[in-house]
């Protein structure tokens, strides 16, 4: 009987722990949603600090979109090349070169392109934002802003939110063009598919709905990455140790939410 009580007690403890963890995750998710709402509206509500806003915004765009864009160009060339390397040889055998464009549109423009650019921004800027804001929090700079009567979420969060969104949209365009050029270079070199035929195939396959889905995904991914990074930066309070754990947690949350959003949007496209 005693053993039974112990087993039931242990099970109850485990269930309690699991429930507690679930509750903590839900609380985090709600916190992220609240932050999203605050950052989305923050640019339109409050004192008219347009100059300050653009200074921070341009700083963020430079950091995210310009400083290491060449890396994205290089990886996107590889992406285009990889897509074509698997497809071209089979398509040439089947006399189906005109499907190369359709393949590029589906994979690069609609599916992989937004995710590819989002991963780049997550690695390049997401962690950096969490560390920067976390450091400011630990060093009492956030408190100094509050004492100046400045809303730190608005001053620090909003320009980063819109900066990341603008940057990711630009990087997505860059990624798509680079992937197309990478794809063409391989198709031309190994399968003797010429530019005119390749370009025509791509343009014919490209529809507004593909572009719309690509841009919608990109904008949402950017907002998610920015919100999560800013949120985990601000919840850092007292210790430098928190910054490391919050940065890794922000990365994981961003990945999960970007993945979930991608699945939802893709499913919505096919429905």
């Amino acid at each position, binding site marked *: 009987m005693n053993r039974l009580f112990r087993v039931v007690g242990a099970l109850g403890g485990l269930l309690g722990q699991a429930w507690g963890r679930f509750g903590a995750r839900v609380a985090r998710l709600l916190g992220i949603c609240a932050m999203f709402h605050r950052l989305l509206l923050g640019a339109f509500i409050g*004192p*008219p*600090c*347009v*100059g*300050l806003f653009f200074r921070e915004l341009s700083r963020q765009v430079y950091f995210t979109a310009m400083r290491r864009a060449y890396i994205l160009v290089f990886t996107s060339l590889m992406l285009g090349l990889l897509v074509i390397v698997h497809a071209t040889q089979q398509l040439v055998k089947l006399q189906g070169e005109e499907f190369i464009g359709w393949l590029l549109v589906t994979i690069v423009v609609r599916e992989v392109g937004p995710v590819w650019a989002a991963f780049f921004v997550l690695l390049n800027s997401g962690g950096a934002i969490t560390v920067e804001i976390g450091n*400011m929090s630990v*060093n*009492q*700079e956030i*408190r*100094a*802003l*509050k*004492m*100046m*009567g*400045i*809303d730190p979420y608005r*001053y620090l969060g909003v320009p980063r939110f819109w900066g990341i969104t603008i940057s990711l949209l630009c990087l997505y365009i860059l990624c798509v063009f680079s992937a197309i050029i990478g794809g063409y270079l391989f198709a031309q070199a190994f399968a003797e598919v010429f530019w005119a035929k390749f370009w025509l195939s791509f343009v014919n396959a490209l529809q507004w709905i593909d572009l719309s889905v690509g841009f919608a995904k990109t904008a949402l991914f950017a907002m998610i990455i920015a919100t999560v990074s800013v949120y985990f930066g601000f919840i850092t309070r007292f210790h430098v140790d928190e910054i490391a754990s919050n940065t890794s947690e922000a990365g994981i949350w961003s990945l999960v939410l970007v993945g979930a959003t991608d699945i939802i949007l893709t499913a919505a496209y096919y429905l």
Partner: protein
Amino acid sequence: MLNYALNLDLVTLPIDTAWPAPLSLALAFNEVVLIEGAGPAVSSPLLEVAATLASPVAGNVRHWGRNVALERREKLYRLRRRIAYISPPQVLLHFLTLGENIALGPCYYQGCSESEALAPHADLLAQLKLQAHLTHYPTQVSAAIYARAVWARELVKGPELILAVISGDLATTAGAAMLVNVLRESLARYGAAALLLGESLEPFYPLGHRLFLLESGQLRKRTILEHRARPLTAYLPLA
């Protein structure tokens, strides 16, 4: 109660400190209260509560008759715009120059440029000897210049309540003399009340209306010696 710029009503501070609990202290408009025997570590808990950055365990904190615990976030931010809070834990933003740090508040609220924000305060910057350092980043300047930049940042708000700990280089004779002049002008210009704390505040006696000594967990009232010798005519409209 509306006659006070700051009213700490039976306040218990959040951490166990050297302050009497519960603490009651009120600052009338244009009044300067000095508390000696309170170094930076001792002063910070009181000033954080007074500056609305921390909540007291018990009691009420009122600014101009408004209970800050009941204020919404936006109103609290606007309230803090009227308070200058200078304490060693106060820092400058590391990614802005001293000039940008000082002008940040006016730029945020008025949407003006840095030069437009600093132009009306050229005298203040000159008095604090900061004009040569406005393009420097906080990490590039000495601790004394950094402390003066924090003072400048808080005073350009045009504060109606000044909460400050006098410490470091500004507690020395030369630093205090500079600060007394700056404070005198700010108090006169904005009609501000001030609560100044420090180990020794003798250079600030000419500004003070009331003087307390923090000793063994008690605030003891002291007479400001300078006031005894001050001629009565200074207080009467005889001219």
